């Protein structure tokens, strides 16, 4: 370990000062001898000047490199007492001192001293100035190494605290105990309002009215925290209940589906019987779809879905989805009109889940669009977001509630009041929950008979 002990530093400082005195005395002497009346040999003095010059800069360079460090291997910067003073204050002190020294030394010229006496005076002034200069200079060096040269200054601190005061509306720090307590309560209430339900006030720290207030705040927090955990538990229980009930429904349903199918193969002559079987078949299929959607919707809305978020191409996904659906659209005489960017549009999502969301919108269009109309599918990049939209003309008027806000994404709400056709009314709810889970946004904008659904995600790159 290459240690930089205080002795080494002290020695370097003393050496530096010696060289400074040598340089100044040499210079002063040379100047003094330059007087034509004296005509002395100044070579010795000049040598002294050069030696002092070289020496003082060499030692200064060494001091610069070791200042603030304890060893060559140690990269930590140790700040001393002087460094605690703001750098701009240091500068002011330094220049005041320099001014004072010069002010006091202004009479030096007129002093009737011998040459040796003048040299001592010059050396003393040089020594004094150098001490102060070193203190300031090395402090600046340490602070630069520590990267706090500019931030540790009075001006910066004032500007900073002023800005902070402007930022937080609390421009004044409370001075009284009551004020401080009230302030603490205010902060706790704000934290609770933002959802930090583990915020707790120590009632012993408050006095009088403040204690009553703190106790009340704690009560509110406890109540709220209980209510929230109750709700989470209830959501879970509800999801579990739905899943379990659905499993129990599926077993008898399997038999119903199978035996209805077997009945169909029995070649019944009776036309009524055939009709009844057809109805049974349709309804049992519908029940099957409903139970599956129900499990799906409850699982997604309780957040119980594992996401595999990857970078995927939204354009590719729409082409893929289009390929899955074109015959279902053709079967109802619907034409898909797609308008997509030429290049890929990369978003971060779980491809399978995003497909399920988009699939639900396509299914919705395939079911509820008016026959022989066009379904418009578009993907546009707007303000860094990939906006996917699907528009179709609904065959029945779209429901709106009293506010005019559409509630189609609510579970079990379908475009038709009578629930006779296929569909469980869960499709849009599932699509919305899935999109939101992946940090995308889902919107329905029905306009008269025009049904518009959009899914948008932040774009990673578009090239």
């Amino acid at each position, binding site marked *: 370990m290459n240690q930089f002990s205080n002795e080494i530093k002290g020695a370097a400082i003393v050496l530096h000062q010696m060289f400074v005195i040598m340089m100044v005395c040499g210079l002063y002497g040379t100047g003094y001898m330059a007087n034509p009346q004296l005509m002395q040999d100044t070579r010795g003095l000049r040598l002294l000047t050069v030696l002092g010059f070289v020496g003082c800069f060499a030692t200064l360079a060494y001091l610069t490199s070791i200042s603030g460090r304890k060893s060559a291997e140690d990269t930590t910067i140790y700040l001393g007492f002087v460094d605690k003073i703001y750098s701009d204050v240091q500068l002011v002190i330094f220049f005041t001192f320099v001014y004072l020294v010069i002010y006091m030394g202004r009479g030096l010229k007129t002093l009737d001293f011998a040459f040796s006496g003048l040299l001592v005076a010059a050396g003393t002034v040089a020594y004094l100035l150098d001490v102060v200069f070193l203190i300031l200079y090395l402090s600046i060096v340490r602070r630069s190494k520590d990267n706090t040269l500019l931030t540790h200054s009075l001006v910066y601190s004032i500007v900073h605290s002023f800005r902070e005061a402007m930022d937080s509306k609390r421009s004044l720090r409370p001075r009284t105990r009551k004020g401080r307590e009230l302030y603490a309560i205010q902060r706790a209430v704000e934290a609770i309002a933002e959802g930090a339900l583990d915020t707790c006030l120590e009632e012993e720290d408050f006095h009088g009215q403040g204690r009553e207030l703190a106790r009340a705040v704690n009560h509110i927090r406890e109540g709220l925290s209980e209510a929230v955990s109750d709700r989470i538990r209830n959501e879970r229980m509800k999801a579990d209940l739905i899943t379990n009930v659905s499993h129990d429904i*599926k*077993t008898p349903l*399997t038999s119903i*589906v*199978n*035996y209805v199918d077997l009945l169909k193969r029995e070649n019944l002559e009776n036309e009524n019987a055939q009709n009844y079987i057809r109805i049974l078949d349709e309804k049992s299929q519908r029940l*099957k779809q409903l139970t599956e959607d129900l499990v799906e919707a409850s699982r997604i809305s309780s957040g119980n879905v594992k996401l595999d978020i*990857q970078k*995927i191409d939204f354009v590719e996904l729409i082409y893929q989805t289009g390929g*899955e659906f074109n015959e279902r659209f053709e079967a109802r005489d619907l034409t898909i009109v797609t308008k997509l960017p030429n290049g890929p549009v990369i978003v971060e999502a779980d491809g399978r889940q995003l497909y399920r969301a988009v699939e639900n919108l396509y299914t919705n269009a395939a079911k509820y669009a008016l026959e022989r109309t066009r379904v418009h599918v578009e993907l546009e990049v707007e303000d860094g977001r990939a906006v996917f939209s699907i528009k179709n003309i609904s065959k029945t008027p779209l429901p709106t509630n009293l506010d005019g806000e559409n509630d189609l994404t609510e579970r079990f709400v379908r475009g038709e009041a009578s629930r006779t056709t296929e569909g469980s009314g869960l499709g849009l709810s599932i699509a919305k929950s899935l999109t939101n889970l992946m940090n995308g946004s889902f919107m329905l904008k029905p306009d008269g008979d025009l049904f518009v659904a959009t899914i948008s995600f932040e774009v990673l790159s578009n090239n």
Partner: protein
Amino acid sequence: MTVLVCDDDKEIVEAIEIYLIQEGFEVEKAYNGEQALQKLRDLKIDLMIIDVMMPKLDGIRATFQARKTSSIPIIILSAKTEDTDKILGLNVGADDYVTKPFNPLELVARVKSQLRRYTTLSSVPTGETVYEAGGLVINDELKKVTVDGEEVKLTPIEYNILMLLMKNKGKVYSISQIYEEIWNEEAIGVDNTVAVHIRHIREKIEINPKEPRYLKVVWGVGYKIEADS
């Protein structure tokens, strides 16, 4: 061929029995995991269909036990639809997983497919022009595609797409890559064409095109043939 059907719901077992007998299979019935294992030991069984949630010994444990002594195809039947349940079932050694309520015809198709695979797979001719992925085999010389030994008729474009994916198993091809490879044209303003062809291929080679075993969809990326299906 004897199929062992095991479910604690008698009516489900009987319905499956009717379908299997119609297709010329012989059926043995069991109503819990222990009975199933007993029959597996005592009789010559070619394939087992087993429910998960059953009294005494559930289907997962029974499958795990059965796998210690037998290599016959096992199809798990379950009301649970979650991926984790499927993975668990396949991990303990089942060959296929069918969720309730199932389409009886699909179940029969899966039974046949598993049996064909089990009995004929060893006799698949191998050569430089033969590509296979599980039960899917393409003989490029004869331009013949078979799934579990049964021939599938593909159009030339479908065949070329499937061949491209087969030759590069595990690699995901995007729609424009497939377009450029098959049509030898730059893919400008591609449309649903490729996706539609892919779906047609899936409908021909998969039992359930929505849950493909061979030609997988990687949503938002492209299509691939699983490297080890």
